[in-house]
């Protein structure tokens, strides 16, 4: 009786509620995009790996897990990851400790080293180190052998140590950033309490500080591992000449004619499994970080006085700065201005290389334009999609929204080359016209970096009290009006940072592009790689400098416009090119 009465008295509202509204279309669109971008390609990767000649079969997996070539690649990848993780841990932790706990001079230098190392495209660092340390023509090797006669000091970069060195330069910042923030946020009173009970500095460090910061440090080490094994560029540039084939380069080789889609899919899935296990462990470690409490007033840890030893630590920091920043950048700049790279390069300085890549050679021109366009488009789409998905997760009550959030994080576990294999599998089957177009590159970039967009939006939305949106709604604002007037302006700074977080890796993306490009859709990183492969040493350097200038300009513009601390925001993301 009462129920009937209610239904009769408020039918309008009820009807309005059940009708499809704009927000439903927007949300539906976002979900659909995520399915097309991530879920379906991944499913076709799965399907492709078990598709045998006559139906389902595990023959590809069998071959991948027993064939000498594949097992060797797997082993090399794991060895590379392990060494890189170890050295990232040592270097990152030492620098983090120096900055957060000691009175070492030049802390800014260490911070700059970590940030720039993280932002520098690793394949460009690899190229620079080849110019210095390739066994025959590397400049430093030449000087050591031919000028100084110290051939026993020469270093062959085309080796596992060389590969580890170049990779660590990119991955140690993961440990550094996580460790320094953990060391800074340990409440000083935990350590003081141990000291007053008679524990020495060393004992306090081992029994109190170390267990408290261990989860963050282990998590950073695993991130280094995951990123290290996913880097196609340095593994191709340094690994292949040294006959060190790894998972990304082996998968790449499977696309030589005739392409072995099934094997590539199976190997990709093995690759994903390693990454996912490592990322799962990383998350589990990080979840234990609840130990580290935010420091209250006056609870900052006291800085340890190193005495004269602080100049030794400072010296180590300077060496790190020189090896990680000065050497690669100075080399690329020098090569880009020289007529021919060698001992006497300074005798023939020229702008011809820049003229060549910017004005004469249409491939590099096209690559620059393509990459700029793709990066702007991919960053914008990823951030917009991310905003909607983030909003669904944080604000709506749609069932399965958590699942959506997880789906949006999947690509974090996918190395770039695996994304490319999955996209090829999917789009070749359903829309072959897309193959080798700019569109498939855009799909790859958005799919790969959507997690960064979602996270940026998620983090910003969580900081905004829902009552701000609710008070607009109670005043009669529609969903669109609320979004436009309240939500979007409030999360704009966060989205801006997210946009940059996508732009920077896309402008240097190589791992996925290398399988997806065509001569018309060539990108900057691919152009650099191809020029390098064909031996255009000097123009490669010029193009590399252009690439870095674009990255620098993007960061400059973003910080000017109010994006703010990009490197600190990105500390736990798994980027890689």
């Amino acid at each position: 009786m009462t129920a009937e009465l209610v239904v009769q008295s408020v039918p309008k509202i009820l009807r309005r509620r059940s009708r499809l509204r704009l927000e439903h279309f927007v949300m539906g669109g976002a979900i659909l995009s995520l399915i097309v971008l991530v879920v379906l390609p991944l499913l076709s990767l799965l399907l492709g790996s078990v598709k045998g000649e006559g139906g389902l079969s595990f023959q590809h997996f069998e071959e991948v897990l027993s064939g000498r070539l594949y097992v060797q690649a797997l082993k090399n990848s794991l060895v590379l990851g392990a060494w890189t993780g170890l050295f990232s841990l040592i270097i990152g932790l030492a620098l983090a400790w120096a900055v957060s706990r000691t009175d070492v001079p030049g802390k800014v230098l260490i911070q700059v080293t970590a940030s720039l190392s993280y932002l520098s495209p690793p394949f460009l660092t690899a190229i620079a180190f080849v110019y210095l340390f390739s066994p025959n023509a590397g400049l430093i090797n030449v000087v050591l052998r031919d000028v100084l006669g110290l051939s026993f000091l020469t270093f062959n970069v085309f080796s596992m140590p060389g590969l580890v060195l170049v990779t660590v330069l990119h991955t140690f910042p993961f440990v550094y950033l996580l460790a320094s923030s953990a060391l800074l946020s340990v409440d000083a009173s935990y350590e003081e309490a141990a000291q007053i009970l008679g524990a020495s500095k060393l004992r306090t460090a081992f029994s109190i500080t170390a267990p408290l910061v261990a989860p963050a440090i282990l998590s950073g080490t695993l991130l280094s591992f995951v990123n290290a094994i996913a880097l196609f560029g340095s593994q191709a540039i340094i690994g292949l000449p040294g006959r060190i084939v790894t998972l990304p380069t082996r998968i790449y080789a499977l696309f030589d004619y005739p392409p072995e889609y099934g094997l590539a899919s199976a190997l990709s899935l093995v690759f994903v499994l390693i990454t996912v296990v490592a990322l799962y462990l990383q998350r589990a470690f990080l979840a234990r970080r609840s130990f580290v409490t935010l420091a209250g007033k006056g609870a900052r840890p006291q800085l340890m006085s190193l005495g004269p030893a602080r100049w030794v630590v400072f010296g180590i920091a300077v060496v790190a700065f020189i090896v990680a920043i000065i050497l690669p950048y100075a080399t690329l700049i020098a090569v880009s201005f020289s007529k021919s790279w060698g001992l006497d390069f300074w005798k023939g300085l020229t702008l011809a290389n820049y003229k060549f890549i910017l004005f004469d050679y249409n491939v590099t021109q096209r690559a620059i334009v393509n990459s700029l366009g793709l990066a702007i488009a991919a960053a914008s789409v990823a951030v917009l999609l991310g905003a909607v998905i983030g909003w669904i997760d944080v604000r709506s009550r749609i069932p399965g929204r958590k699942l959506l959030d997880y789906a949006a994080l999947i690509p974090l576990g996918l190395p770039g080359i695996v994304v490319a294999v999955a996209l090829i599998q999917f789009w070749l089957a359903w829309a072959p016209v897309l193959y080798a177009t700019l569109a498939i590159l855009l799909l790859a970039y958005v799919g790969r970096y959507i997690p960064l967009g979602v996270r940026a939006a998620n983090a910003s939305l969580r900081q905004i009290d829902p009552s701000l949106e609710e008070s607009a709604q109670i005043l009669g604002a529609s969903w669109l009006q609320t979004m436009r007037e309240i939500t979007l302006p409030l999360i704009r700074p966060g989205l801006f940072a997210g946009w940059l977080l996508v732009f920077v890796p896309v402008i240097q993306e190589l791992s996925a592009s290398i399988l997806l490009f065509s001569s018309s859709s060539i990108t900057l990183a691919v152009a650099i790689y191809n020029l390098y492969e064909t031996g255009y040493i000097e123009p490669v350097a010029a193009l590399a400098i252009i690439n870095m200038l674009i990255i620098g300009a993007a960061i400059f513009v973003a910080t000017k416009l109010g994006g703010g601390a990009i490197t600190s925001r990105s500390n736990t993301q798994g980027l890689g090119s």
Partner: protein
Amino acid sequence: MASITLKGLTKSFAAGDDAPAAVSALDLDIKDNEFVTLLGPSGCGKTTTLRMIAGYIVPDAGTIHVGNRLISSPGSVMPPDQRGMGMVFQNYAVWPHKTVYENVVFGLKIRKTPSKEARKKVDETLALVNLTGFEARYPNELSGGQQQRVALARSLVVEPEILLLDEPLSNLDAKLREQMRVELKRLQRRTGITFVYVTHDQAEALALSDHIAVIHGGKLQQYGTPFEVYSRPANRLVADFMGLVNLVPGKVLDVRDGAGKVEASDLKLDLALPSGFAAGDKVEVAIRPENIRLDKPQGNGVALAKISDRTFLGNVSEYYATLSSGQVLRVQTHPLQMFAVGDTVAVEIDAAQCSVFRGAHSDQG
């Protein structure tokens, strides 16, 4: 022997928002087995003083003796881990990655106590703080009060001669604070450990301490028993900080053998005067609200006043009584004594409980 002697203790910090408060030329004699409180508003230097005693902060000048042992002097500062003290922190600092047992046994392990004996000592200490049965718990499974007691047990188990406590009750709710206050006092009596206790809560200081050191602006203002500090404040800062007080400006009319007549607003009071006052001096008279009585206008008071506001606080009633000069007095009376706003009342003052300070604008130095 665990007396503590501070001589000329001085510390200044570079200016900055979160720089600790400075301390200048602080002298303090803390006797063995005493419960001494460093009391003052936040930023007065009391925590800095405590942290210099502990050894976390290195003084710029001055010395610290424990008994006859010099533990801190310019150029030779013993680190905290060799001072053998205990400390309880404001945020407890109970290590989150160790169980209650592991937290408490830590100091004994450092001292290489045999494990059987250590076990026994931990059990006894946990019993002392009513935490028997909590050994295997982690701190995040404990309430604030329980964590507080773990912190206490951890400091007590190593039987320090001196226990430093940095606002240990400030993070507890009112009821628990009262309860812990009683437990702390009992603990101190039972163990005979010298307690140095930092707080900004004067009620806590009065309830707990054998002696209170009132610190303000990095300087020691007064050192005395709770009764002395409360009823005979050394200066206006101390009077103002130790509970509610009416500070009434006035003038000395007449001085005779350590006593004098003071006219303050409409009040003519016969007061004990410290030496050095002369007729005509400007003064301030400190009158605590509970030392003022209100009566019907025909009663025998020193002045008449009008009730301008009243608040019922449960155990007392608080009135604002305005004298004809416009001076407002805050008065606390028995709750059953009822006056209405607008009533005229006679004001009676217990002159023996008042203190006199030099006036803020005194023309004599």
